[in-house]
């Protein structure tokens, strides 16, 4: 019952939010989100990191005619993503304390709904369930952008929705095809991923019109849009810029990971031949994403858009690492998924903090902010260092192993990807210089002279509390990566070693529960 509780507790919370009096919504939500996070921490007790098997499994019949079950479980691949999801809820609630000005109740309702859908995505072992959660998570995010977003919010929300929806429809077709295939090959239809892994899916190298290649493409496109990978990334900058801060944080920290998680859960183990055959091309797209995202980030006039393009670049690393198909790349990719969540999440929170004060994100309006907001500057610099992967921060571990994995797999692509090391520093430091250093810009001057209503106060206690856990994680993950990686190592080893013949066993102990 543990995982079911984990998934559906937020729905209960969402209902509670509707019942709360208006004045108690924020406090109530925060407390509930913390309770949920603490509940999820029990995983450290219950999860056995020595095995790659699926754990804490719960399975109940649902639509037996199609072999669809209520089937949830957790392994080393989903472990950290689940914890990331519960970890970020209290942070965004406290982080958006003053910034959500209208329909507060609906906002927190949507947020908790989103929690359930995201957790469901990471924990579902039944593919139909996965699909439902994957799709359902679009709705609350669509609302967040569309209702609480900026001036072009409707456009951005629609774009976000259509892009991701288009991709996932292809996936649905492929899932249905897989269910039919289980009926043929295993004797009974099943929507369980565990059964999917047992299938022999015909593959013909070099031809498109064969089952494995087609299904590979369907899943690949669906997840590539979600990641997002070049060239289907253009929804992301718009969505990020228009989304309110908490929406941007959740989108970057967790929802993008649903795409790369999909690669790890479906594409790589399910279609091993196609993955190996087309892997170089996916790596190429990843590398193009790294360089392209960085270059375009460099010329952005808007801080938030810059961070959004940096996401394209960082997620390019993740894809490169995953499709290097060796242990270094995969491990680095998983770590980078977490790192990107922490550092980009923190960046969006930081941008939100300054936006609340000045209501602008235009880089050229700033300048000299370091003198006006010294602590904010220090925090921003720390997160910048994490984002550009300076050793000692979390970013380095992920980037290092991804580049190593990529390089060992394909020297040319690995070398081009290393350009990201340079360009990443270029666009971030260029922005830092323009915003924080140099003579006082328009806004800093204005705030001093009292032309603007809000003085440029340094970070408040609340804002510090919001950022502190992320800052701690940046160093903890950077200095003791093994504390984190050891929980996923068995599963990642298993995935890489048996990719061609992947099976996901169910841990015996868990079934007795």
């Amino acid at each position, binding site marked *: 019952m543990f995982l079911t509780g984990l998934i559906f507790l937020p729905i209960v919370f969402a209902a509670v939010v509707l019942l709360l009096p208006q004045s108690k919504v924020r406090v109530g939500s925060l407390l509930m989100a913390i309770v949920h996070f603490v509940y999820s921490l029990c995983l450290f007790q219950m999860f056995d990191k020595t095995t790659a098997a699926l754990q804490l499994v719960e399975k109940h019949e649902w639509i037996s005619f199609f072999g669809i079950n209520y089937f949830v479980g957790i392994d080393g691949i989903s472990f950290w993503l689940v914890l990331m999801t519960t970890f970020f809820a209290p942070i965004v609630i406290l982080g958006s304390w003053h910034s959500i000005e209208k*329909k507060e109740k*609906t906002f927190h309702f949507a947020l908790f709904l989103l929690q359930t859908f995201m957790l469901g995505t990471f924990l579902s072992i039944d593919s139909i369930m996965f699909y439902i959660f994957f*799709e359902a998570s679009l*709705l609350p995010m669509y*609302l967040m952008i*569309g*209702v609480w977003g900026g001036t072009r919010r409707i456009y951005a929300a629609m774009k976000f*929705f*259509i892009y991701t*929806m*288009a991709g996932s*429809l292809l996936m*649905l*077709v492929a899932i249905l095809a897989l269910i039919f295939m289980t009926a043929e090959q295993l004797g009974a239809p099943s929507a369980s991923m565990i059964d999917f892994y047992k299938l022999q899916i015909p593959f013909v190298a070099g031809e498109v019109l064969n089952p494995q290649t087609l299904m590979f493409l369907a899943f690949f496109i669906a997840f590539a849009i979600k990641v997002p990978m070049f*060239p*289907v990334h*253009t929804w992301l*900058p718009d969505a990020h810029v228009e989304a309110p801060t908490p929406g941007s944080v959740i989108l970057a920290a967790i929802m993008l990971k649903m795409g790369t998680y999909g690669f790890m859960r479906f594409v790589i183990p399910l279609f091993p031949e196609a993955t190996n055959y087309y892997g170089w091309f996916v790596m190429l797209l990843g590398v193009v994403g790294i360089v392209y995202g960085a*270059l*375009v980030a*460099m*010329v*952005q006039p808007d801080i938030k858009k810059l961070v959004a393009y940096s996401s394209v670049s960082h997620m390019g690393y993740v894809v490169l690492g995953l499709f290097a198909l*060796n*242990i*270094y790349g995969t*491990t680095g990719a998983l770590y980078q998924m977490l790192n990107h969540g922490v550092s980009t999440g923190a960046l969006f929170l930081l941008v939100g903090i300054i936006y609340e004060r000045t209501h602008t994100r235009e880089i050229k309006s700033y300048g000299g902010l370091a003198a006006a907001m*010294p602590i904010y500057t*220090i925090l921003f610099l720390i997160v910048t*260092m994490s984002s550009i992967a*300076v*050793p*000692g921060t979390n970013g*380095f*571990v992920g980037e*290092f*192993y991804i*580049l*190593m994995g990529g*390089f*060992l797999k394909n020297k040319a692509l*690995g*070398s081009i990807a*290393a*350009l990201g*090391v*340079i360009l990443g520093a270029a666009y971030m*430091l*260029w922005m*830092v*210089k323009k915003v*924080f*250093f*140099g*003579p006082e810009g328009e806004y800093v001057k204005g705030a001093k002279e009292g032309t603007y209503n809000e003085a440029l106060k340094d970070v408040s206690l609340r804002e510090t509390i919001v950022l502190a856990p992320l800052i701690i994680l940046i160093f903890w993950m950077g200095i*003791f990566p*093994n504390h984190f*990686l050891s929980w996923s*190592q068995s599963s990642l*080893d298993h995935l890489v070693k048996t990719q061609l013949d992947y099976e996901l066993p169910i841990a015996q102990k868990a079934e007795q529960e």
Partner: protein
Amino acid sequence: MTTHHILTLVLLFAPVAGFLFNGIRFRNQNGILAGTVATLAAATSFAATLLIYRDLLALPHAQREILVHFYNWTLIGESKINISFMFDTISILMCLIITGVGSLIHLFSIGYMSHDERPSKYFAYLNFFLFNMLLLVTGSNLIVMFVGWEGVGLCSYLLIGFWFKDAEKAAAGMKAFITNRVGDAGLLLGIFILFSLFGTFEFQEINARMIDVAGIPLSLLTAATLLLFVGATGKSAQMPLYVWLPDAMAGPTPVSALIHAATMVTAGIYMIVRMNPVFMATEITMTTIAVIGASTALFAATIGLTQWDIKKVLAYSTVSQLGYMFLAVGVGAFGAAMFHLMTHAFFKALMFLGSGSVIHGMEGEQDIRKMGGLKKQLPITHITFVAGWLAIIGTPLFSGFFSKDEILWFSYASSHGHFLLWLVGVVAAGCTAFYMTRLMALTFWGKSRVPKEVHPHESPLSMTIPLIILAILSVVGGYLGIPHVIGHALHLPNILEEWFSGKISPLHIENATTAEEVLLMLISVSVAFASATLAYIFYVKDTAKPAQVASKIKGLYNIVYNKYFVDEGYAKAIINPLVVFSRNLWLYMDVEFIDKATYKLTNFVQNSAEGLRSLQNGNLQSYAVYIVIGFIAMISVILF
């Protein structure tokens, strides 16, 4: 936990403690307290180094290695990354320089930064630099070294841009970081190749594998060492990546002394010496290093001839001297490179601090055209600066003479050497003697050109004591490595060579005689003497002459004065096109092409979906889409 664990912790974490102390109270303006704590932290590290040094000495010569392991950073696949540290003859020498010279520079900073608004922040950064630098040289594997390598780059960035309100200074910090990143990308790739060849990151294991090179693909090994060298050119400011170092002078002057002269910029040399067996196996890389080193030595020295900013002259001089060290490395004279690294750390730190004392005394003025005759007002600074000057121009019996001459000799006599390398080195030495004498003359000698409103004054004791100690070291430091040609006659040992034996690859000298060595030495000393005399005449006796000469060769002078327009070239050839290209990518690729294409696709899908619906063939997915879109529309109507 052995005593060595504890000593290592003290060595590394004393500066971290200082960093935290000053970092947490970064707003505190009590510079004396901040500086004292930071200096004590550095001195504690120095003491720990001495204790480790003592233990190392107690070991028999062949076993002088202390390995200290802490924990496994990561354990992935075949790769195990240890957080562990190695003290051997190479790294302990680096530690002694870093913590010794470092402590003196910390002490100097107390006086130098006494009028600054944010002394605590300054000392926090300085301590943090020390920590990273020690990581770099004591790490037992490439990864720990790389952590320190990037860490010192970060500190350098923060300290160059320390006075961030000045946009130019902030830009200089950024330039340093990004240029270094170019090198770091190469270094990373080099590390990957080494890992693919040897399956380990540990220096000891990699070096041990080089005893028998059979079976190791030479092309990959060459690629690896070349890439490592790319990393070295970034950090140690060699062509073509030296451009950040002159700009780095925007930082406080003690920073220039510590980071941009004595320690950080020598990291590239250290790395190559650390892995000298690997480099020795790759002929192409060795030649490349020697050629780049010699060219940089000459190239930077010529720029130094024309600069007016006291720190800029010293900066180009540093680039040039680092070139000498790479020249030494490239011809296989690793011991000579380490020797020059050490003496250079003494005399260049001395001169940077000396220039700091001058700038401090001149109330911030850095233009040597507005100085002159300062020896009266700044006697201690002057006399110590003279010691540094004599050392760098290679005056016999001063430290620079021994180390530079050893390099020149090996660049000719080593089996990797060449007459042309020697020649370039001697010409560069001539330039060095000229620009340093010019600097001395314009700053300290001749007539005073100091503006009336400035009242030069000697610096306080906390600043002059480090100068005096460094001056003594600049004079006597050379006796650690007396060349054989002199040592044999006097029965003096080459202490440094014995110290390093077994750790660095032996040098092969072919067909060279003692007579040749003496002759070459005489030539280089005479060249230096002649050009120093010329500079003295130009800038003290006949002060109209330099302008006349400059106007005669105006074209050439302008090119050199403008640093061969390298920065402008980079901007035109790389940076500007990249920005334009990126902007086009964004506006045309993203906004115009991809977005428009997807709109078209969406329209097409919509139209065909409508076509399907009119056929009423009950397509399940279309219905799903319509249900969802309908739902969205409903909610939209309600909420928006």
